[in-house]
């Protein structure tokens, strides 16, 4: 199930759990826009799903660090977005998106795929059972790669995709604003079951990124590659 180290938790619960909300976004982009479009969406989601670092103190109180933000301009899209100021997080997302883009390109299919960002909680199990990962929010971004014939089309595409991404950001913010289920704030011993505490400057909720390349019928062409880009078990 999990190709990465044994430190990760066991397979996710089969399918979304009862209280795992799922959101789907779709974008059509040119090949060279894939990375920026994905980063814009993923960063916007993680902006809302990251807090400052927790510092636990005596008597069980904790304080929260500060999250900085920065503007990012896209090169191939008339678009700008805000991301959390964390180079580690940015690197992690870029790595995932880069792999997705490469997989899209080399799949030889019509250029369709999807990338998923799943937020989960860990539920510790007794030995010998491994911990369970219980997703509570799943974002799926469906990508359709188009090929354009000339520069004029590309220019229009820059603007159109920019406008589309604006809509996606508004959609994401709408979902965030519903104030639906969020894991409750953990005690110090539980914090690694809820948050990714491995970054030095911010603290996102535990998340996983995976992707799939599909053919035009929507079925998996290549072996479904589920890559756990981020897995956490603070040791």
């Amino acid at each position: 199930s999990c190709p990465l180290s044994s430190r990760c938790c066991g397979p996710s619960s089969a399918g979304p759990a009862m209280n795992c909300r799922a959101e789907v976004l779709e974008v059509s982009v040119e090949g060279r826009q894939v990375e920026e479009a994905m980063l814009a969406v993923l960063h916007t989601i993680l902006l809302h799903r990251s807090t400052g670092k927790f510092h636990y103190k005596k008597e069980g109180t904790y304080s929260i660090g500060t999250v900085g933000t920065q503007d990012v301009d896209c090169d191939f899209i008339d678009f700008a977005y805000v991301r959390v100021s964390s180079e580690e997080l940015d690197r992690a997302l870029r790595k995932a998106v880069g792999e997705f883009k490469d997989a899209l390109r080399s799949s030889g299919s019509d250029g369709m795929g999807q990338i998923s960002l799943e937020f989960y909680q860990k539920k510790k199990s007794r030995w010998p059972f491994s911990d369970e990962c219980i997703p509570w929010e799943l974002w799926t971004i469906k990508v359709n790669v188009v090929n354009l014939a000339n520069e004029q089309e590309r220019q229009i595409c820059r603007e159109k995709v920019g406008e589309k991404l604006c809509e996606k950001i508004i959609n994401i913010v709408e979902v965030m604003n519903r104030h639906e289920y969020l894991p409750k704030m953990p005690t110090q011993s539980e914090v690694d079951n809820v948050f990714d505490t491995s970054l030095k400057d911010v603290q996102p909720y535990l998340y996983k990124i995976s992707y799939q390349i599909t053919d035009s019928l929507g079925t998996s062409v290549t072996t479904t590659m589920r890559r756990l880009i981020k897995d956490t078990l603070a040791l």
Partner: protein
Amino acid sequence: AMDTDLSSQDRKDLDKFIKFFALKTVQVIVQARLGEKICTRSSSSPTGSDWFNLAIKDIPEVTHEAKKALAGQLPAVGRSMCVEISLKTSEGDSMELEIWCLEMNEKCDKEIKVSYTVYNRLSLLLKSLLAITRVTPAYRLSRKQGHEYVILYRIYFGEVQLSGLGEGFQTVRVGTVGTPVGTITLSCAYRINLAFMSTRQFERTPPIMGIIIDHFVDRPYPSSSPMHPCNYRAGEDNGAVYPSVEDSQEVCTTSFSTSPPSQCVFTVTKTHFQTPPPVVTDTLKVPVMGLAFSHQLSSSRLSYQPAALGVGSADMGCPVLFAGGLNAAHPHQLIGPGKEGGVPPVPNQPAHGTQADQERMCTPLDGVHYSAATPSSSEDTETVSNSSEGKCGSPHDLLETIFIRKVGAFVNKPINQVTMANLDIPFAMFAPKNVELEDNDPMVNPPESPETESPLHGSLHSEGSSGSSTGNTHDDFVMIDFKPAFSKDDILPMDLGTFYREFQNPPQLSSLSIDIGAQSMAEDLDSLPEKLAVHEKNVKEFDAFVETLQ
């Protein structure tokens, strides 16, 4: 009554949260319309001054305007706080682009925990605001301001006025947060005609009369509050220095608890400290595009005195600056809190002991108890440095002078001056004077080559794009796009675009500084005979040279 269920402590906290939420909302909106990329730093250690656990800088002028508009009140039913964003062309025509509304409705959520849930949701709402401010049409317009137009803001409090947005305006909701006294709603109504108008039309084209001419009408409502450029102060005559000095600054220190007996300890401490005076160094410039803009419009070119600080200067509230801002000495380095001298001691998280006796239990939520502490008595954290105040007396005066003069030039001067200033002709400073104030005389104030980058520039703008001051160059190949070909964001703070801009905009030659400018004409005239004599002496050399070119 609505309030009986809410403890007085909760009520106080809630009011404080709403007040600071309103102020931060204004900051986010105005900063998003400055025309530059914003960048603040994450800090794993709480500084105690970053409200809602977000690094959002406080521009003093903007806070001042917001407080003025609010006049001590809070958003309530029928009393909304509105930030109006509009565009003003170089001809003086203006058009409303957006109205951001912070409103309160009657729908109360009595069950919600003020000190914890409301606070965190307000934080989330600010993040949403950061995201949404980049996706309305005005964002892209504001990024390209400086040549033909500037973006202005106006804050008012009361009833929302949307009629200036034209027909068919659209609304986007940023979010809502329920509280025991009402639901806070943040939304934006924006003009859509602009969406069809390519921003290209605003780049170096002839006046745009005739395209949106029907919107250039007199404002139906006389402005109850003045318009302000997002990125430079609109020279009010109040002469007051914008409060770089505040008698007391509310500091928010948050501390949460989940351990049994689970208590949420939320403290808001009131501390007296003054933000330090603007750091006066040689390399400090006014990091605002508005000055660069008027710099282009008016033939009055001010050289940027070291003390000419304005928006984004060091006096932005030290804790905020040093928590998420720019090191005055190193433009590309963001520093963390407390790393540089001059940081007024920000009160630390109050010792929990002091609150222990002030905690109280609230209704359990999810099995976790939350309580709030009364503000600890840290009013004694007096970090006022009165001595430093005297130092900056004169720089502030100079600041005042410069700003007022600039605005006058921008607003009142006829267009022929624009033409004059835009011409990049050699020896422009020797061209015939216009009949105008000495202030605008290029002889007295020689044309300024684009100023060097302010190390504090980036305190408001991104570390990479500071110094762009787009619009301040009168060369023809201004970077329209911040991304030059083949460059990409990399780990280094300086990217190719910054490199280009820096090398296109070399610092002002000291010989052209304002000190010398006043005498330059006379001196130049005096030295002409000498120069002529030298040339005459070498005439044979010159002739020989010309021969080689034949």
